[in-house]
């Protein structure tokens, strides 16, 4: 056979990866596909679909990474995708990724697949840590007992993945002779499922996997829906059969428990028959480390120290490469100035493009450092511990412990943070987290803070930044509290926080994360921000002709033609500056700013600040680039220029606060709108942010002004007083609401054993 005909005979196959969260499914996907991937969306739902290409000698494989799930019974929109895709996947090839270091629980999903008649190719992942701990498995027996083909893999290093790809690329995947599958459904259940299917004129042997799944669900569901009398009878018969030979008869409400128990019994039998699982899966050093990191007294300080370290490195170390970037941008604009003909294009390049985008790219080092730490924390497994120790606090603002991860992500950028809220299964919880995320200071808002804090508080900018963060946090807590208080739902999403074993992060996964973040930021800077910068530039240079109050041109010409003295040079400089300012005030931008200005005036903003908030809606980063364009005629140094036009530290502080709160950028709003699927929610959120920003800024301004006039209290003390006042107010309101409601623990599950039962206040039901 010639080579070309071999190429032609390559088969096309769709491969689906299914497995538990944290089983290494995505690592396996990365190992198999490399960089050849495509990110899309599943039809009809806003769940990310990750597809990649892998080529074996005999086939072109399209690899689809399905969302991670513990079981086929969905608890989130993502997991629903797995169930909905399972029919299509059964026609292709399903690779079930099983973390063998966590064998029993991972085999639950495998059992469900086998029960539905699917024969997955099993990737026994994390095989290295399994054998290292002393585990052994007889692959031949595993294969015979389950009717599947197992492949030991180590996805993190790529070990064993080649064999897997070659196997799933074979023209005919030989399925193992199936004498008696140890994981398949027992006859009692099979009979009942057959009967349930018959109600829909279907048969088990010819039914699709999802049809079989829904038959099983009908049997175990708490409230059969729709209530068919025959189904109730089938369930009662099933319960009766299961009760045979037992002391306590099985109730129909306990069928779900029975099925799960049965599955685990089969799994235990299988493992006992073919493998020796190490007694203790968690090494002693990990337990020790865990005990320290989640320690009652040390846990929180360690976490706080880590966060402090992350922040310090991000902003202090990040300054060094920031300086390089700044000089690069300066050099570039100087180069364009020197080598291009004077005209509108050069002005656009220097004034719009270079100064706009350049001002953004300067902050890339910050983002890279921050996400380097986030990647390390996530990959090492510490993020779960952080969520664990922070859960109580998150819970107190009505959030799920898992919401901490999106919130932390919000520090980098609100857009992926909003996307990350998908890990929260309860819709209300998800919406609440989405509402709060824009109040988390994202990396793009840092330029504004760094710049203003450095300009107005040069002695100790970090203290002021910390104060801003703190006020921001208080607002966040307040909003979270009030919202969860107003819309309290009795059912919270189940809190299941898996503690993965500690792992050494691999350089490649950290690199992946950094590359993705930087690319995302540059992409954003390149499109949205550039568009913003250009629009702002257009608004700031048009109309070209502005009526002037004084004939600067002839006066300047006269001065220039006359004898050159020190006086005349000074006069020339002064006149040109005055002309520039007058020109600027006649442009569209200033007109727009002045139009909105009355609304912002109570906050003490000049029209320039007002104007800079407009492009800030496009992307917060644009606030600084707009300010630098607007202040260019006063001084090359933005800080000097702002001081020259009469901005006080107080106004700067209020402006920073307003910028932090007033509105999320358009990209964040876009994802909120898409993720929530509700225009009303998005619009409401918008109003809420603006109102909060306005009120908080106004209060700060007034209190600040009062404090400033009294000489006995200095600035920092004043702010401490404000924050304490806000905290006290929040506590009072909270207590007030609790008081009206009568009790705080009306949704407590262990009512009967609660010592505070019947009392108006509940101390949390602690034993």
């Amino acid at each position: 056979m010639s080579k070309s005909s071999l190429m032609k005979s390559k088969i096309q196959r769709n491969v689906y990866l299914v497995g538990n969260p944290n089983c290494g499914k995505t690592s396996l996907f990365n190992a198999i596909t490399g960089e050849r991937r495509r990110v899309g969306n599943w039809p009809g739902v806003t769940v990310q679909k990750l597809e990649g290409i892998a080529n074996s000698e005999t086939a072109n494989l399209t690899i689809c990474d399905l969302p991670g799930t513990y079981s086929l019974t969905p608890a989130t929109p993502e997991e629903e995708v797995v169930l909905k895709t399972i029919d299509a996947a059964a026609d292709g090839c399903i690779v079930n990724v099983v973390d063998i270091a966590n064998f029993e629980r991972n085999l639950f999903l495998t059992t469900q697949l086998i029960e539905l008649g699917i024969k997955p190719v099993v990737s026994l992942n994390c095989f290295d840590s399994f054998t290292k701990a002393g585990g052994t498995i007889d692959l031949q027996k595993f294969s015979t007992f389950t009717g599947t083909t197992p492949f030991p893999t180590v996805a993190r290093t790529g070990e064993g993945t080649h064999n897997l790809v070659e196997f799933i690329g074979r023209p005919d995947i030989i399925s193992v002779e199936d004498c008696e599958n140890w994981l398949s459904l027992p006859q009692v259940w099979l009979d009942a499922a057959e009967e349930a299917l018959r109600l829909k004129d279907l048969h088990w042997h010819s039914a699709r996997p999802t049809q079989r799944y829904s038959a099983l669900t009908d049997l175990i569901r708490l409230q059969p829906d729709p209530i068919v009398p025959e189904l109730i009878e089938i369930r009662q018969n099933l319960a009766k059969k299961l009760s045979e030979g037992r002391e306590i008869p099985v109730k129909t409400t306990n069928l779900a428990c029975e099925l799960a128990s049965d599955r685990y019994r089969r799994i235990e039998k299988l493992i006992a028959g073919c493998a020796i699982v190490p007694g203790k899966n968690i090494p002693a050093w990990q337990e020790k480390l865990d005990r320290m990191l989640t320690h009652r007294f040390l846990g929180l300080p360690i976490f706080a120290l880590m966060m402090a370290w992350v922040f310090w490195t991000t902003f202090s170390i990040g300054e060094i490469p920031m300086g390089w970037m700044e000089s690069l941008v300066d050099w570039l604009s100087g180069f364009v100035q020197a080598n291009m003909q004077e005209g509108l294009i050069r002005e656009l390049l220097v004034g719009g493009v270079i100064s706009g985008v350049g001002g953004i790219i300067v902050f890339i080092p910050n983002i890279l450092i921050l996400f380097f730490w986030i990647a390390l924390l996530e990959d090492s497994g510490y993020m779960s511990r952080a969520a664990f120790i922070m859960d109580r606090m998150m819970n107190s603002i009505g959030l799920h412990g898992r919401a901490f991860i999106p919130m932390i992500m919000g520090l980098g950028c609100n857009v992926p943070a909003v996307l990350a809220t998908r890990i929260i299964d309860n819709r209300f919880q998800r919406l609440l987290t989405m509402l709060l995320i824009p109040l988390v200071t994202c990396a793009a808002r840092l330029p504004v803070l760094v710049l203003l804090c450095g300009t107005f508080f040069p002695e100790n900018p970090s203290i002021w930044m910390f104060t801003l963060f703190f006020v921001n946090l208080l607002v966040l807590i307040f909003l979270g509290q009030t919202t969860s208080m107003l819309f309290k739902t009795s059912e919270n999403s189940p809190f299941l926080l898996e503690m993965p074993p500690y792992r050494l992060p691999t350089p490649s996964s950290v690199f992946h994360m950094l590359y993705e973040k930087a690319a995302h930021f540059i992409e954003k800077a390149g499109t949205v921000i550039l568009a913003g910068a250009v629009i702002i530039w257009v608004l700031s240079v048009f109309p070209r002709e502005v009526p002037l109050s004084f004939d600067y041109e002839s006066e300047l010409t006269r001065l220039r033609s006359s004898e050159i003295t020190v006086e005349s040079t000074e006069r020339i400089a002064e006149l040109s500056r005055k002309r520039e300012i007058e020109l600027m005030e006649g442009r569209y931008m200033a007109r727009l700013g002045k139009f909105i200005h009355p609304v912002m005036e109570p906050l003490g903003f000049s029209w320039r600040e007002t104007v800079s908030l407009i492009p800030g809606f496009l992307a917060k980063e644009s606030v600084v680039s707009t300010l630098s364009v607007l202040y260019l005629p006063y001084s090359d140094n933005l800080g000097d220029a702002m001081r020259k036009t009469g901005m006080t530290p107080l106004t700067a502080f209020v402006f920073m606060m307003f910028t932090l709160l007033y509105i999320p950028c358009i990209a964040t709003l876009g994802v909120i709108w898409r993720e929530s699927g509700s225009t009303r929610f998005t619009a409401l959120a918008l109003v809420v942010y603006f109102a909060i920003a306005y009120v908080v800024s106004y209060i700060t301004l007034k209190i600040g002004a009062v404090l400033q006039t009294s000489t006995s209290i200095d600035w920092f003390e004043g702010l401490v007083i404000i924050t304490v006042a806000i905290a006290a107010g929040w506590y009072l309101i909270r207590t007030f609401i609790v008081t009206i409601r009568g009790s705080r623990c009306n949704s407590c599950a262990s009512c009967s054993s609660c010592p505070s039962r019947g009392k108006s206040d509940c101390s949390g039901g602690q034993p």
Partner: protein
Amino acid sequence: MVRTTVTLSELPEGSTATIRDIDALSPTSQRLLDMGFVPGTPIRAVKRAPMGDPTTFEIRGYQVGLRRSESALIDVEIKPDEK
């Protein structure tokens, strides 16, 4: 032999017990069952979080954090010798 039945939320830190029953009426139960919280399974309370909630439990060789609201759904049995 004297056996004590408590809810999982009351299981003292560091002690081991066996799952007896799980509240079938809660919508959370299905997920707990799927994750291996079935009657007869040994379970250990590993660590309570610094602020008192949630608690990590070790079950079937892995660790998972549960809040009091979830762990209160599960009844466990402490044998005197396991205390």
